[in-house]
């Protein structure tokens, strides 16, 4: 079965989620991937949206983080201060799932501005829940399309802290959680090096070359010694994803986050 690059991305991201995960879900591609996991191999996964909905099981993908579909299908809906204080800061979430406008070699994320903060070239939406999702979830997955504009040596603004300048910077900053452990793109999977924390390519999607990944990454990207090829989407994964997107009116893809 033929598939698109964005389908590959959502399916690969979904596979990284486990049945017992408690996942803090961003809108857009993270939400598509998390619900695909729930509808395939992880039926018991708990999906939490920052609007306060815990255990949401949306039949159609929400356009916003607070669509009625989320509240109506949730186990419970809590006030937003409680969501951030007890559930996120309290350490109840295993995976935070984020998108990014820019991500750098140490997995710091920018969703605030392109250019200088005081005089931005592009004013982006900002952090929302992401700064504390990046700090308080057990680990963080990032999903982002692979381009030199997105994969930069250093982000223009650190909205969400990954590994700072690398090495043990995260621990020195007093952060106890693991941080970004997986980056999913339309070309490959990246994981941080155990010591340096620099993002390295660990798995290449079918039909993608090393040269293409190198060309579309804004720093001299390294490849893991035991480089894998990502298994292609199965017919089942593709049909569940397409049904989900179609009934959500997003057959042509999901919007930005």
């Amino acid at each position, binding site marked *: 079965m033929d598939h698109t690059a964005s389908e590959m991305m959502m399916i690969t991201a979904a596979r990284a989620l486990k049945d017992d995960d408690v996942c803090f879900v961003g809108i857009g591609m993270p939400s598509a991937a998390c619900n695909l996991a729930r509808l395939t191999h992880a039926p018991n996964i708990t999906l939490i949206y920052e609007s306060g909905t815990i255990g949401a099981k949306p039949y159609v993908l929400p356009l*916003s*983080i607070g669509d009625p579909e989320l509240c109506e299908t949730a186990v419970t809906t809590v006030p937003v201060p409680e969501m951030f204080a007890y559930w996120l800061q309290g350490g109840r979430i295993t995976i935070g799932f984020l998108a990014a406008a820019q991500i750098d070699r140490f997995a710091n994320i920018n969703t605030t501005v392109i250019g200088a903060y005081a005089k931005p070239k592009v004013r982006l939406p900002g952090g*929302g829940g992401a700064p*504390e999702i990046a700090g*308080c979830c057990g680990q963080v997955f990032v999903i982002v399309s692979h381009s030199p504009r997105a994969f930069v040596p250093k982000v223009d603004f650190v*909205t969400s802290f990954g590994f700072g300048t690398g090495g043990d910077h995260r621990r020195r900053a007093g952060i106890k959680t693991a941080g970004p452990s997986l980056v999913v793109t339309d070309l490959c999977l990246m994981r941080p090096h155990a010591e340096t924390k620099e993002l390295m390519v660990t798995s290449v999607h079918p039909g993608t070359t090393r040269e293409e990944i190198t060309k579309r990454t804004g720093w001299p990207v390294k490849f893991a010694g035991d480089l894998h090829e990502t298994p292609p989407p199965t017919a089942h994964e593709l049909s569940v994803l397409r049904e989900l997107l179609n009934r959500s009116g997003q057959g042509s893809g999901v919007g930005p986050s």
Partner: protein
Amino acid sequence: MPRFLALADAIAEYVHDGDTVAMEGFTHLIPFAAGHEVIRQRRRNLTLVRMTPDLIYDQLIGMGCARKLIFSWGGNPGVGSLHRLRDAVENGWPQPLELEEHSHAGMAHAYAAGAAGLPLAILRGYVGTDLPNVNPNIRFIDDPFTGERLAAIPSLRPDVSIVHAQRADRAGNVLLEGIVGVQKEAVLAATRAIVTVEEVVDDLRVASPNSVVLPHWTVGAIVEAPGGARPSYAHGYYRRDNVFYTQWDAISRERETFLGWMNENVLRKSSSPSPPIRGRG
């Protein structure tokens, strides 16, 4: 006992030029009717506070009501940019907009601290980010017990908070349900509070002893404004108008189309006709 007022009278009396105003509602129950009345009454130099500025503040900013924005995520949810917010920040149109930018966790804690009457909020947040470099209201303190370094920000205490709710009874008790966001905190943190409601009823029809109810003595004014959250939604009344949220991208992208839409759909409309005064006061 709150006063039951027409929308135009409530805004005229409770919202003044230069005020710090919070219109809250996390995607759900956004008080659009009240926001539009603020635009019609041409309030100026407001400091607008909202976690997600959403279309309502895009409109207020584009119409020149705001001097400053305190916020944590300024996009059109699931669609893209807020073009009027961007135009104000990137080009100073129709006037420059000062930003005080936080994270959601920071804003949520700051509202809760305001409701609690505390001067500051403390959280485990902002660590390693550039936000403290651009917002002097984000600082760090040491916990006197464990020594842990924690973020501290001033509590939010708006001059006036405006929220929309499902209904009020004739004594002025207010029921909120569904995604309840930070509305209770915003009301309790504010000096004055206006609540617009879908309907005023004899019986609040409270589903559970734990339902979110704002007792009548916490609210200054109640305005009956059916449909007052559209194109946002009111759980149990009407759905979110996702089509309009998507269309707003094209409407708001250029100044001319934006001003045309505002003129047609906000300025030329009168505020909803004064409802019969059905409260006791």
